[in-house]
């Protein structure tokens, strides 16, 4: 790592606030923003009804002048889905960065804090055991509450004898496997029709997303994502070890629960929107780290962009490749991401 000052840019977003940023980081951020935009545009054009790139551009920016049918296809079906995909991916990626940095473990992922398992178990209860008790619109909220509840349980259990990141993660594994046994029980004995729709959701599927959900997700994401980014200095120090961070003025006992809360919010809002997208939170931070290593000021936005790209790509591929059949985005991502992840991790070990 060369630390030559020539590579730094001084940015003054507000008077009296000076940010030092590496020009390479900024360049990568711009690159991935462009990539995300183009992936989004590609997602808008492809589908069972192909629309040309030029045409969809027109439909998106001047919907008045285009035929109603096409405007509906893009604005009602594809755009909310794309936005939801991008937001979920970004949220999970940020949650992943936070968890990997807090636990200082490259294999940690948002699924480990129990939110996904809690949310899926709750969702399955309301979809399979007592269907139609709760209107479909409120299901995500219930999932979110379930996820929160489980995350709180894991936190309480693991901090009973003093907090340690390793214990948190391992207890998360234990609770998650218990909850997934419960979910499996419901999957095995539930009505097969209900189970299939539940499985679709569990696999991380975005096919029923509405603008309302996108707006809700947007609010959660913007608030907690910004808060997470503002903690980048603390995260930078936490990576070096709890003691180092403490000596540099980071109060672990306050900062870590706060960061965990942020990652729970991010994860559960995306689980509520799109079901479980297990792999994004694990892999997006790793890809981002290849471009900007552990500088969280750049790492957080960059992995958010990469996570968004990944989910949009996964969702678009999932609905086009096996065309009449829609594969959930989460599963496509695992198929594509798993080999990459394994290669990445084995390479990391050698250095």
């Amino acid at each position, binding site marked *: 790592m060369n630390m030559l000052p020539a590579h730094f840019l001084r940015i003054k977003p507000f008077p009296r606030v000076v940010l030092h940023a590496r020009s390479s980081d900024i360049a990568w951020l711009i690159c991935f923003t462009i990539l995300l935009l183009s992936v989004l545009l590609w997602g808008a054009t492809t589908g069972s009804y192909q629309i040309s790139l030029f045409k969809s551009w027109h439909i998106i920016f001047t919907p008045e002048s285009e035929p109603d049918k096409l405007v509906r296809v893009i604005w009602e079906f594809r755009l909310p889905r794309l936005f939801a995909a991008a937001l979920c991916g970004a949220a999970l990626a940020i949650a992943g960065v936070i968890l990997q940095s807090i636990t200082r473990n490259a294999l940690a992922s948002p699924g480990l804090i129990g939110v996904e398992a809690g949310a899926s178990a709750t969702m399955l209860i309301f979809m399979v055991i007592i269907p139609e008790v709760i209107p479909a619109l409120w299901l995500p909220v219930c999932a979110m509450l379930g996820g929160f509840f489980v995350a709180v349980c894991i936190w309480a*259990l693991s901090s009973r004898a003093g907090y340690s990141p390793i214990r948190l993660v391992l207890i998360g594994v234990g609770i998650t496997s218990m909850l997934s046994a419960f979910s499996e029980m419901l999957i095995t004995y539930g009505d097969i029709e209900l189970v299939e729709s539940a499985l679709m959701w569990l696999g991380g599927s975005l096919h029923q997303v509405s603008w309302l959900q996108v707006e809700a997700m947007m609010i959660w994401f913007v608030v907690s994502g910004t808060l997470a980014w503002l903690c980048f200095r603390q995260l930078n120090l936490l990576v070096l070890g709890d003691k180092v961070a403490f000596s540099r003025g980071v109060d672990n006992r306050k900062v870590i629960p706060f960061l965990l809360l942020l990652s729970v919010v991010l994860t559960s809002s995306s689980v509520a929107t799109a079901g479980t997208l297990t*792999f994004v939170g694990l892999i997006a931070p790793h890809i981002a780290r290849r471009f900007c290593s552990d500088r969280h000021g750049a790492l957080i936005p960059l992995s958010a962009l990469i996570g968004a790209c990944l989910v949009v790509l996964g969702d678009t591929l999932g609905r086009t490749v096996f065309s009449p059949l829609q594969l959930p985005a989460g599963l496509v991502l695992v198929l594509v991401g798993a080999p990459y*992840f394994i290669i990445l991790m084995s390479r990391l070990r050698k250095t």
Partner: protein
Amino acid sequence: MLLNKAKHHTKKGFPTAKLSGVVLLLLAVIIASFWHLSLGAKNIDWLTIWQALTAYNPLDSDQAIIRESRQARLLVALVVGAALALAGVIMQAISSNPLADPGLLGINSGAAFFVVASVLFLPMFGPHYLPVFAFLGAAVATFIVMLLAGWEQNSERLVLAGVAVTAIFSAMTAILLLIDQQGLDKLRHWLTGAIGASDLVKLNLVYPYLIVAMICCFALVRSLNAFHLGARVAEGLGVNVLFLKISGLGLVVVLSGSVVAVAGPIGFVGLVIPHMARLLVRNNYIWLFLYSLLLGALLLIVSDIAARVIFSPYEINTGIITAFVGAPVFIALVLRKMK
């Protein structure tokens, strides 16, 4: 010298206490088996069971129930429990890791994925190849976990690698089942570890592998005892550590692959049993193996009874019961060991 000392120690007196423990456990297994055989849609008294097992009279309908349907399930439970427990002992021994378990490390789900894929896409291979596919899957999963976790003795990293591998394989299984929806209906019982859905035919397919693997386990006892003192000490005592680890992993692959082929992925038995056995005997692997074998069989029979009794007309899959028993034990272990 250490080995000599250990030998001396074991030869010093006849191990009455340990042997009587084995006998007691054996008795417990037998009682549990009788209980297992007697429970069901129709309760059958123990005398009839005894007659069915010793002097079988096919005309008696009760005896026929025992011999024709319930006996198979009991045998599967016994074998599966014993095999998983042995796999757990070996896994924990060679990775020097108290949290290792073929289910938790994704080995079971790897085997399950390969079995599902072979059932759905390669139906031309008959059921005889099912165990082979399971071994293949287990081996691939083991390889990936080891690649991710490395040989270093880091529990947390190994468990996390296992979680990642489990996520990968279960997602791929889910994709297969989404593509082939009839397959979902056919396989969803098996996928959560169903002893009830299994039968003697499947057991017949795997028992040659299982017997060989179990005997090989006992052949590794001396090296494992030495390895328990640390890799360096073991090397000093003339143990080929690399060979030990590879053969141990091979045994784990065969044991848990066979279990998956017979009864689907059943988790946590391999995690819980070695710890229970270690409460009873210290780390002499020959006794640890014996105790784990019996305890594993016992645990699986009892969970299978629970699976049939709790929601009485329905039955839960045994794998789900073992997860509910095993996960709290795992959490307790984490809380106690990770100080």
